[in-house]
C-alpha cells in the first residue's frame, strides 16, 4: 500500500485538529510506542538528552500529561486552557515507500489562552511518520519554537 502526498498532508491537519479539539485519546493512538515528542530549548539544538529541552517525552510522559489535564486536582487547569493551531500546507520532505517512512515539515502559529491571558508562538513541526498495518502513525515529532530562548510563562497544552 502506498501513501500519497495528500494523505500525508491531511494527516498533519487532522493531528492539529485533534489537539485543538482536545481529542487526546485519539491523538495518543496516533503514536508508535517508542516515539518521542521533542521541543528543544536552544535554536538548532541537536542533543535532546544531555542539555535541557523544553520537552522530550516518551509515550508514558505524554499519557501522564494528557491524563493530568482532566484530573480533579489539576489546579493550573481550573479553568482549562484552550489552544488553536493555524498551519501552512505541510512540506513533504522525505518519502521512503519501501520502508514506509515519511518526513514532513510544517510551519504554524499556535495560540494558547486561559483566563485573561493569551500568547502566540511561531512553530516549526517536523514529523517522522510511519505506515504500520495500513495506518499512518507518528514515529517522532519535533517542535521548534521560533523564540525558544525567550522567557515563557506557562505553556500548558501541546503546541
Amino acid at each position, binding site marked *: 500500500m502506498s501513501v500519497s502526498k495528500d494523505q500525508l498532508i491531511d494527516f498533519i491537519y487532522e493531528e492539529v485538529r485533534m489537539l485543538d479539539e482536545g481529542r487526546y485519546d485519539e491523538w495518543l493512538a496516533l503514536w508508535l510506542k517508542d516515539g518521542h515528542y521533542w521541543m528543544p530549548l*536552544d535554536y538548532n539544538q541537536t542533543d535532546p538528552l544531555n542539555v535541557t*529541552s523544553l520537552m522530550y517525552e516518551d509515550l508514558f510522559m505524554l499519557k501522564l500529561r494528557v491524563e493530568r489535564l482532566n484530573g480533579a486536582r489539576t489546579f493550573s487547569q481550573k479553568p482549562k486552557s484552550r489552544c488553536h493551531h493555524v498551519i501552512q500546507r505541510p512540506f513533504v520532505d522525505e518519502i521512503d515507500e519501501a520502508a514506509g517512512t515519511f518526513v514532513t515539515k510544517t510551519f504554524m502559529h499556535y495560540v494558547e489562552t486561559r483566563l485573561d491571558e493569551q500568547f502566540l508562538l511561531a512553530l516549526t513541526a517536523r514529523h517522522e511518520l510511519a505506515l504500520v498495518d495500513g495506518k499512518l502513525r507518528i514515529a517522532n515529532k519535533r517542535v521548534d519554537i521560533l523564540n525558544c530562548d525567550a522567557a515563557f*510563562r506557562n505553556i500548558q497544552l501541546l503546541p
Partner: protein
Amino acid sequence: MARYSDNPAAIRDLFRGNEVHRDVYIDPEIYKLEMKHLFANAWVFVGHESQTPNKGDYFSTQVGDQPVIQVRHSDGEVHVLHNRCPHKGTKIVIDRAGNTGKFFRCPYHAWSFKTDGCLLAIPLKKGYENTGFDKSDSGKGMKAVGEVRNYRGFIFCRLAETGISFEEYFDGSLSSIDNMVDRSPAGRLEVAGPPLRYMHHCNWKMLVENQTDTCHPMVAHESSAGTAVKLWEELDMPEGTPLPPAMEIIAPFMSPYEFFENMGIRTWPNGHGHTGVHHSIHSNYSAIPGYMEKMVEAYGEEKAKAILGENRHNTVYFPNIMIKGPIQQLRVFIPLAADKTLVESYIYRLVDGPEQLTARTAMYNRMINAPTSIVGHDDLEMYERAQEGLQSDGMEWVNIQRLYQEDEDFSEEKVENGTTERQMRNQFDAWVKFMISDMDDVREAAE
C-alpha cells in the same frame, strides 16, 4: 508615599517572628528598597566560570535590578562590571553571551575599555583636554561591582564597595556547593547548555520560600506526581521492575508527610539553609555503573562514600538562588518587580563524570522546572494566586509559624524537623538585617 525609605523601624516591623506583612511581597517601594539595600549588601550569584571559559568571553545578566557583565580578563580572572558605558549609559553588550576579544567597544561613540573595565581609548580624545575629564568617574572606565569571589567555579559579587566578607556571609553553607562540585571526580563542573527561562507574575521571595516548603509537594503536585504513580501502577509491571528514570524523579514528590518530617532542615546564619539533612527525594536514584569506581579512584573510598552519601535536597543561598547538589542544578530567582520574577534553571555536568548523570539532570530540569513542566505549572499557579490574594485587605499578615519557637536565634546553625518553616523565618531575619544595615541611623548607631 514613601513609608519605608530610611525607616529601619518600619522595615523591622514587617517581620514579627511568626508572621510577615504582605507589603514585603506586594509593595513597589519595598521592591525598590530591596534592590537598593538588600541586593547591594548581600553576596549575590552572577554565573558560573564555565560560561566564560576563554579570555574575552562575557556573559550578561542581572544582580538584583542591576545589569552586569561577567567577563574573563586577559589575566584569566573573572571580573564583574556594570553593563553601562561611562559616557552616556549605553549598555555595552546586549546579547546574553559572546567573546569581545581584548576589549569592549561601545557601539555609540566607540569608547573602548579593557576587559577589567579600565578606559582604553576615546576617539578624538583631545576634546577632553583641560576639561577635568581625568578626574571624573567617566574617565575611569566601566565601573566594577564592589567585590567578586569565584568559589569553586561559582561567581558571586557584592555590589556595595564595602560590607560583609564572602566568608562571613556564607560560612558553613558553602558545604552544599562543595558537595555538588566534589561529585565530579575532577572536582569541577561545567555548565550544560542554556538555562530554562520561566517568567512568573509573583514576588521573588515566594519562589525562594517554596524551595524549603516541604508541605506542598503532595498537595500542589498531586495532579502530576500522583497521576504518574497511578499510571505506573495501572501498567501492573512484575514486582521488582526497576522504575524508569522519569518515575524515579517524579514519584518521590508524593512521599508522605513523615518522609519530609524525617528528612530534616538545617539553617545557617544570614538566611541560608537546606532541606534533606538525613535523606531526600534524591536519595533513591539508581546508581550509574562505573561512577563509584571513578570517585574512589579520585578521592579514596571513605571520602567518595561520604560525598555520595549526602543527599541534600534544596539549598537556599540567600537572597535568590537554590542549588541541588545531588543533580547539579542551580536556579536563580531574578527579581524584576514586586510582582514579576524571572526564574533561570541551569544544569551542570560533572567533569570526568558519567554522561548518564547529565542526562538525568537534564530530564529533571525539563520535567520539573520548564515553562512546559506539568509540575512547574501548578507551582506557578500557587504563587500567582497568592500574589493576587494578598491584595485582600481582609488580612494583612502571612503566616510562617509551622514549628515556631519563641526567641529563635538565627545566628546559630540548627537542624530541625523537615517540615519546619524556620528556614523561611531565617530568610526574613536576614532580609531585615541586609535591608537596614546601610540605612542612615542604623549605620550611624554602628559607627
